[in-house]
């Protein structure tokens, strides 16, 4: 019973940490009347950013950052109480059924997680080890003594913080944050189109049935980047549907850049995924040239800053240390041979069957290209998809490890992580079907 109570308390703790007042929603997203999920969506990104900054100032044996976090928690709690009181006073206090559904799903999946406590292979070897550095009172200077010290650590740090800020302090309470972020990204992407609550619930069910597997939460970091990429495409959609935003540097871009920064600090391949996203965005004519330059420069600055911090801590800053060790340009055709390409394609097809998002993306892009030619989102998402495939080909063809083994153990995870860029196509397709009145006959 105490564990069930702790799960609900954990839900409350994460919600308070991610709650933001209306003024921040207004500043970052020009949203004057945000609902709870809008607030949490912004708050969770700010929370990741704050945790990253705090991780820089964490020192061995010091509790200062935990006191700062307690102050943030109390501050947010105060804002929530004030908002509830104001709504109650104005007789505006209503039950948000979608948020109730969010709580319900969080509870159901938490129960699933509490019975599948096995941590994945790489998670035990690398991510958990980094988490334990912080749990044992270490700081980010101690990360250089962990295996694969070229990997970023934000996900492990978040894992540590949320298991520390829990009643029972079990390890999996930290991973409940991963679940929270995943659900929040699904709920956010389902609300990009204006539909009735019941339709929204059905759309969420569809997305959950397509994506959810308990193994996604076994400590691997892909689920974090997957969820953040969904939020990234959502903000991209919001910027493009608001014509004013693409003309001048709107505050939405600040939110976008904070989000990009978090992705860079979770997994090394996040850099490539962001590059794919930005390239697709920058190639769009609609966006102002100045904005393109600013975003590109800030992205490069964020990368350089990460490089600087890694150097400062003493971490390795090679991308995928050892993986491309033997690749030399004069050996190009030894790596890019017909048989190797066929092998990668074979595995790509095999894992596409395992990840329905890929099959759906191809189908949706084909249908929408034919029947919704004026839709401005077809081009960037088609480009993202093609660049994504190019990324898989190059990342695996140039590997120094035995190709079949690398494909077997990691292609599915990289494909899953990247598929976060395409999930938004499902609600967009539903909107398309509604606009074209395909659903009226059903």
């Amino acid at each position: 019973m105490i564990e069930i109570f702790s799960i609900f308390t954990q839900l409350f703790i994460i919600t308070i940490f991610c709650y933001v007042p209306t003024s921040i929603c207004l500043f970052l997203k020009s949203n004057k009347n945000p609902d709870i999920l809008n607030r949490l969506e912004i708050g969770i990104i700010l929370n990741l950013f704050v945790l990253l900054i705090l991780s820089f100032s964490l020192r061995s044996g010091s509790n200062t950052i935990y006191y700062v976090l307690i102050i943030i928690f109390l501050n947010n709690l105060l804002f929530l109480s004030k908002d509830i009181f104001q709504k109650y006073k104005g007789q505006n206090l209503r039950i948000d059924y979608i948020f109730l559904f969010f709580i319900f799903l969080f509870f159901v999946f938490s129960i699933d997680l509490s019975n599948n406590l096995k941590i994945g292979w790489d998670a035990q070897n690398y991510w958990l080890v980094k988490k334990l550095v912080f749990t044992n009172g270490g700081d980010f200077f101690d990360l250089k003594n962990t295996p694969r010290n070229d990997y970023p650590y934000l996900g492990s740090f978040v894992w540590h913080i949320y298991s520390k800020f829990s009643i029972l302090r079990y390890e999996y309470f930290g991973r409940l944050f991963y679940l929270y972020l995943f659900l929040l990204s699904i709920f956010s992407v389902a609300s990009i189109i204006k539909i009735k609550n019941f339709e929204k619930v059905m759309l969420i069910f569809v997305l959950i049935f397509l994506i959810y597997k308990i193994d996604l939460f076994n400590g691997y970091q892909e689920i974090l980047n997957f969820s953040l990429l969904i939020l990234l495409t959502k903000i991209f959609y919001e910027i493009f549907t608001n014509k004013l935003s693409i003309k001048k540097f709107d505050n939405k871009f600040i939110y976008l850049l904070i989000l990009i920064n978090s992705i860079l600090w979770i997994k090394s391949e996040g850099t490539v995924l962001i590059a794919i996203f930005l390239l697709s965005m920058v190639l769009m004519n609609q966006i102002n040239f100045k904005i393109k330059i600013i975003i590109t420069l800030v992205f490069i600055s964020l990368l350089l800053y990460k490089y600087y911090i890694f150097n400062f801590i003493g971490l390795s800053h090679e991308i995928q240390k050892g993986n491309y060790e033997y690749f030399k340009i004069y050996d190009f055709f030894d790596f890019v041979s017909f048989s190797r390409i066929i092998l990668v394609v074979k595995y790509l097809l095999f894992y596409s069957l395992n990840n329905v998002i890929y099959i759906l993306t191809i189908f949706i892009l084909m249908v929408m290209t034919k029947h919704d030619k004026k839709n401005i989102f077809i081009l960037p998402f088609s480009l993202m998809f093609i660049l994504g495939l190019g990324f898989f080909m190059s990342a695996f063809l140039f590997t120094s490890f035995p190709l079949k083994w690398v494909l077997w153990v990691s292609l599915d995870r990289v494909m899953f992580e990247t598929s976060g860029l395409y999930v938004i196509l499902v609600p967009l397709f539903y909107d398309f079907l509604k606009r074209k009145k395909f659903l009226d006959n059903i």
Partner: protein
Amino acid sequence: MSHKLLKKKNYLKFMVFVILTLIMFVQMNFFKKIYFVFTRDYETRLIKSYEYCGNESIGFLSNVKKKFQIDHKIPIVNYANSPNSSWYFNDLKDKKDKKIIFLNYNPNYKVDTKYSKNLEDYKVLHQHNNCYLLDIR
């Protein structure tokens, strides 16, 4: 009439929601899992998630920890191709003694360790299949 239709529509929506929820529950064995949260403690569920003596062998480590009242970290040599499970002892003290744990012991398997692979160099304190708690002679 329209009120009745609205009621019927809402009832239908509710039924669709219930059916989908039930499908989800059945798919993930929700009722069994919630029962386990009530009846099994965290430690039991953790052990059940892994093999007793195989790969990480968390069950064996837990048994050793309880039976011998281990309060400090013991070096673990895992002979299987599996992650090192020393994280299981993370909350214990750092203290050196002569104890060592061999998991999935196989003398023919090459492992990178400073400890002798010959069991005759140790006193066996506890054994389950290929998992050993040893004392260095």
